[in-house]
């Protein structure tokens, strides 16, 4: 039995080799990397591996337990589906970016200490920038820049927190941390930025719609779920997470309802679902934490599927906005089918979302959190309406936009089929392997009770009914081309204001200093040193000439002559000799005096 290797190493090496290959070889190799990683996954034994000494610390690159296992499992599966989805166009940025993304995320998952966690955390940002740049539009380039700004800021916050935490005696152990003191609080916020919390999470719906069609699948999977994993490890049971999660579960849905770009709709719904996981972590009970892990797993599946569906639409039509699309059922029936399956995978019995979301809701109910339960139910309804019904309806049905195009290419369809298949297997047969993956044993849940299934179908049907009635009555808000202000406004517009103030202040100081130094001081100094001695010499001689009784005209003439002589450096030798003697005499006197005073 060969030894397992760190998963991130497989992906990192893969990502570095991909650009060196060409054509079919590159495609085959890229697909092979996740396969190798999957085999490797089964070979990793439980426990702590791959330690590395670093300064005073011991870094742990392989902490294998139930938590890392379930996340590693889905991350590996998704990496294969994602690569399969993009492999046809053979773009280096997509392939290497995706592999790097998967590898970095796995690095965080397997990290056993905070320092290596941080290093891989930052690599996620780099990979995401590749996924954005892979789109090769100006908008994507700008989005990559904004993404970088926000995430570097988040990384700095995290690093500051980590440094303070360590300096005040904390350990680098990647385990539960007490949320007290500036160190842990800063780390908490740093995690939250990647987790797309309210306000700080505005980067997600801002940048995801600009990514490449394959890149966004990786982005949607790895950044936020890694943050969920980290929060579950470090701050489980932290009550403020419940509040944060509740806001995340509700507010973005309003934005999703009025968003035009379908990937922006999906992005807001992503935040909503991550909110579920954050609530679950906040509840902190065994069942709730199991729910968080389960939902992370399932959410990755159906969100990837939905992004792939919209991605295929963009791939074939170049369009992503509800105002521009419609009637694609004619041209892309299979993609539409996968869209419907994606919607079902989110909430319907016999699909994965049902079995995972129910755990979280069950956990909330068990703790007596009635309000939380109700909010989760409303949020489930809302996200089904928006990510499920709205996206599929406006892309494939709605009105005939006249667009005719080809069906999605086979590799994309295969990737979608793979994900849909897994989503179904997990949903229909959760006990088969899925519930065994859940990190905490003994906290069991049975989603398939008769009442629960009928309730859930009723929920979904009546969501659909609400949608249809609103459409028919004309009450449903029309899809229009617009930008809706989000917290991103603060760093986009606000950033501009800051930029202008800084420009006025700092560049103003710069300009003024330039005027003083370069415009005045420097010429004055130059003047002094170039002409000073001449001026001094001629002025020094003046009293002597006066004493000699020369008149003013004569003095002026002599002054002029001495000045000119000085300027040109033309003196009779005698004056130089005289000065030399004078200087030597001065030296003699000074040394005599100092010698005398020291004895």
């Amino acid at each position: 039995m060969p030894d397992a290797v760190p998963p991130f190493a497989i992906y990192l090496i893969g990502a570095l080799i991909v650009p060196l290959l060409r054509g079919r070889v590159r495609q085959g190799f890229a697909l092979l990397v996740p396969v190798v990683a999957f085999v490797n996954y089964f070979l990793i034994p439980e426990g702590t591996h791959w330690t590395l000494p670093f300064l005073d610390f011991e870094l742990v690159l392989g902490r294998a337990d139930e938590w890392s296992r379930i996340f590693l499992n889905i991350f590996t599966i998704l990496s294969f589906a994602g690569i399969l989805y993009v492999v046809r166009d053979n773009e280096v940025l997509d392939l290497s970016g995706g592999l790097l993304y998967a590898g970095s995320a796995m690095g965080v998952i397997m990290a056993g200490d905070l320092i290596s966690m941080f290093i891989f955390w930052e690599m996620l940002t780099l990979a995401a920038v590749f996924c954005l740049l892979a789109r090769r539009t100006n908008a994507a380039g700008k989005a990559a820049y904004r993404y970088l700004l926000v995430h570097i800021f988040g990384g700095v916050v995290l690093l500051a927190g980590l440094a303070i935490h360590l300096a005040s005696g904390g350990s680098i152990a990647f385990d539960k941390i007490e949320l007290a003191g500036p160190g842990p609080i800063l780390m908490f916020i740093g995690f939250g930025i990647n987790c797309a919390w309210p306000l700080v999470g505005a980067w997600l719906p801002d940048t995801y719609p600009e990514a490449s069609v394959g890149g966004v699948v990786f982005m949607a999977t790895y950044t936020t779920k890694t943050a969920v994993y980290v929060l579950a490890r470090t701050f489980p049971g932290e009550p403020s997470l419940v509040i944060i999660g509740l806001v995340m579960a509700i507010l973005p849905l309003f934005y999703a309802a009025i968003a035009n770009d379908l990937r922006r709709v999906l992005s807001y719904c992503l935040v909503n679902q991550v909110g579920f996981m954050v609530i679950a972590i906040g509840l902190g009970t065994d069942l709730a934490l199991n729910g968080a892990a389960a939902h992370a797993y399932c959410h990755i599946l159906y969100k990837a599927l939905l992004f792939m569906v919209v991605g295929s639409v963009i791939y074939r039509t170049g369009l992503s906005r509800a105002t521009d699309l419609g009637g694609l059922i004619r041209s892309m029936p299979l993609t539409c089918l996968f869209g419907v399956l994606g919607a079902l995978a989110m909430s319907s019995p016999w699909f994965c979302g049902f079995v995972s979301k129910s755990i979280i809701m069950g956990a909330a109910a068990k703790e007596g959190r009635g309000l939380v339960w109700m909010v989760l139910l409303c949020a489930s309804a809302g996200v089904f309406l928006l990510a499920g019904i709205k996206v599929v309806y406006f892309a494939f049905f709605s009105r005939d936009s006249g667009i005719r195009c080809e069906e999605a290419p086979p590799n994309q369809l295969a990737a979608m089929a793979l994900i849909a298949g897994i989503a179904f297997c997990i949903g229909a047969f959760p006990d088969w392997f899925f519930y065994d993956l859940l990190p905490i044993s003994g906290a069991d849940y049975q989603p398939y009770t008769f009442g629960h299934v009928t309730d859930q179908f009723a929920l979904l049907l009546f969501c659909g009914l609400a949608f249809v009635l609103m459409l028919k009555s004309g009450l449903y808000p029309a899809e229009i081309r617009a930008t809706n202000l989000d917290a991103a406004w603060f760093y986009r517009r606000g950033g501009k204001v800051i930029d202008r103030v800084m420009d006025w202040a700092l560049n103003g100081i710069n300009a003024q200093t330039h005027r003083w130094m370069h415009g005045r001081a420097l010429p004055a100094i130059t003047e002094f040193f170039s002409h000073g001695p001449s001026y001094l010499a001629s002025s020094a001689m003046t009293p002597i000439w006066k004493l000699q009784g020369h008149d003013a005209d004569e003095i002026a003439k002599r002054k002029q002559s001495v000045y000119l002589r000085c300027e040109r450096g033309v003196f009779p030798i005698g004056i130089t000799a005289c000065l030399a003697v004078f200087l030597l005499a001065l030296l003699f006197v000074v040394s005599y005096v100092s010698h005398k005073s020291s004895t």
Partner: protein
Amino acid sequence: MKTNPPTDDDQKSGWFEKPENVRKLWIGFLMACGLFMILDLVLVVIAFDKHPYFKWQKWPALYAVTGFVACVIFALGAGYGLRPLLKRGENFYDDETSENKDDTDSSESHHSPNHDDETRTDSDA
């Protein structure tokens, strides 16, 4: 990608657009809704134990009503409450740099965004 009036070979996918088919779907859908309502009432009548944690979880049609009302609130609240406050022009952020506006899905750039296996044409702006 082509933009043409519908032709005969769109027949099978045009199935969804024929009024009589839409009517059939609509009736089927309403029947499904009605079915689940009746089912829920039946469960109440036979006092089926849904293992509720809260008293109000026993209300009949709780999920249906919640789903319906929540969706209405999200859609209408967003459209008539949030949108008037937050809506701006589509190119609101575009004076960020000196670049002029471009859409995320228009066909500029070195890489044609619409991939047809046969022909390449410009997409709509």
